[in-house]
């Protein structure tokens, strides 16, 4: 208490009447980069793109508004539809598999095992690598002649066929294998942190009640870890929508258009095809999908804090 009194006593007369604007001036100056980033880049640039997605901009952004024309064309384009369907498949599979793998690995590591650190390092190291590196390695492993398919065939199973990167029907699963390799370690880490936060007494109580380990996880632990799951879900989902580099490295969107994704559509129309309007409309759709994911998350977070 006395400290506070001192401070006002010293600060008061020394500064005279505090001006509202110059009060805390250094802090405001220090925050200028943040304020500019928030207002100019995050708010300004986003709104700019949304506004220009209603124009007929092609080579250069133009101000003649054409309503929803760009969006109609976008949803009429087969390339965009392929992109969306790919993202859906990739998204659902990646979400489920990453959560299952992440949680299972975390649960196994949490069983008080030896070499826990070694195993954790092994599962997490791909996360340090870029999507480009990831994509290129898996492109090589999935090479039909020298890779996985070739190896199995050389074992005598001549008719074995697994060439996702050259087969339009399953190409997205080839990308999925690489994506999960890169990203599941992160989710394992988050899940492990969540498991470590669970009270030891819960386990004792479960043991006293004679509930088996697996059942305890399914019935008691997982429901308790709801916030961790929600966080993981949002993280994975945000990553899925951004999916780009991995596809560029692994397939460049091919064979044909079969592994196109929305981020690639945006890039190609903005910087290659010089059809800015389409790029703007497509990126606005990407934002929209993030908003749809984020709103329930913010709602849940808010509800969580207000409940105490």
């Amino acid at each position, binding site marked *: 208490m006395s400290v506070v009194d001192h401070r006002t006593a010293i600060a008061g007369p020394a500064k005279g009447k505090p001006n509202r604007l110059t009060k805390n001036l250094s802090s405001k100056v220090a925050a200028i980069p943040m304020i500019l980033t928030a207002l100019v880049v995050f708010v300004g640039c986003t709104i700019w793109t949304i506004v220009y997605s209603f124009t007929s901009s092609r080579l250069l952004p133009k101000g003649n508004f054409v309503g929803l024309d760009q969006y109609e064309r976008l949803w009429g384009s087969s390339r965009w539809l392929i992109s969306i369907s790919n993202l859906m498949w990739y998204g659902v599979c990646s979400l489920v598999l990453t959560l299952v793998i992440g949680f299972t*690995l975390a649960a196994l590591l949490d069983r008080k095992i030896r070499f826990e650190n070694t195993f954790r390092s092994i599962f997490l190291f791909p996360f340090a690598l870029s999507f480009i590196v990831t994509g290129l390695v898996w492109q090589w492993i999935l090479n039909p002649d020298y890779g996985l398919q070739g190896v199995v065939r050389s074992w005598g199973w001549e008719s074995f066929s697994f060439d996702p990167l050259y087969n339009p029907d399953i190409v997205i699963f080839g990308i999925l294998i690489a994506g999960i390799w890169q990203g599941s370690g992160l989710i394992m880490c988050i899940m492990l942190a969540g498991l470590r936060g669970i009270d030891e007494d819960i386990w004792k109580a479960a043991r006293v009640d004679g509930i088996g380990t697996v059942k305890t996880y399914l019935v008691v632990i997982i429901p308790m870890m709801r916030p961790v799951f929600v966080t993981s879900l949002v993280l994975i989902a945000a990553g899925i929508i951004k999916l780009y580099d991995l596809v560029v490295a692994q397939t460049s969107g091919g064979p044909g258009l079969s592994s196109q994704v929305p981020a690639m559509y945006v890039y190609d129309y903005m910087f290659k095809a010089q059809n800015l309007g389409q790029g703007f409309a497509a990126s606005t759709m990407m934002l929209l999908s993030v908003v749809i994911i984020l709103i329930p998350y913010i709602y849940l977070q808010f509800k969580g804090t207000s409940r105490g």
Partner: protein
Amino acid sequence: MTGPRGPKPKRRFSRNNIFIYGTLLLVSIYYLLPLYVMVVTSLKGMPEIRLGNVFSPPVEITFEPWVKAWSQACTGINCDGLSRGFWNSVRILIPSVTLSIAVASVNGYALSNWKFKGSEVFFNILILGAFIPYQIMLYPIVILLRELGLYGGLTGLVMVHTVFGMPILTLLFRNYFSSIPDELFKAARVDGAGFWRIYFKIMMPMALPIFVVAIILQVTGIWNDFLFGVIYTKPDLYPMTVQLNNIVNSVQGVKEYNVNMAATLLTGLVPLVIYFASGKLFVRGIAAGAVKG
């Protein structure tokens, strides 16, 4: 009641343990395989690759692919190998990491100790901004950089990295500075220290571990960036990841898988070294970024 007393001794090879270690070992293969394949392929000669498969260990170890990847590999524009991309990446990395951490640490400090009216609003916009897909901001930033005369150069890219690193780094520093006891700050104020003096003399030295975490986060993040590099720089300034992709996915010439894998491994080496050297700090960095973001 006779018989053994005390808890039943645990058997080391119970069925449970075999299951746990078995699963973990099996899964480890999936995670380690690509690393193994990269190393093995990069040490083989091309004739050996054509005869065998990706998993077979090299019979005759050769370092030629590494040399070629570093100094001779072609991207279609030039043939001076990955070294160009490496040095570009270094030239991007050092100023980007320094600037983004300097800005974000001061920012986090201002947000936790020197709150002003509206500071929380800006901070919340910043955090929400981290979720906006970059794609929607790409083009307006091109215009902004062009207006500033920075489009296509390294300075522009450094600014882009600073801007997009800000949400997570600011959050990291704000949370750390908030956890430092308030009394310390108040005592410094009583002694008459101002904003910058408290930052440089008290807060910064105390936050050294979090600076290390931030450096790890930024070095791996910026080194691995592809999208910003390809959009905001000219081809002769492309960072290593972009150049790597151009080398491996170039359509001209015969595919030299060993050179490709050597190049891939070279590009991945920097984040890998950081990862294995930093250990727990890396985990702390991603946890701070992930759980609270």
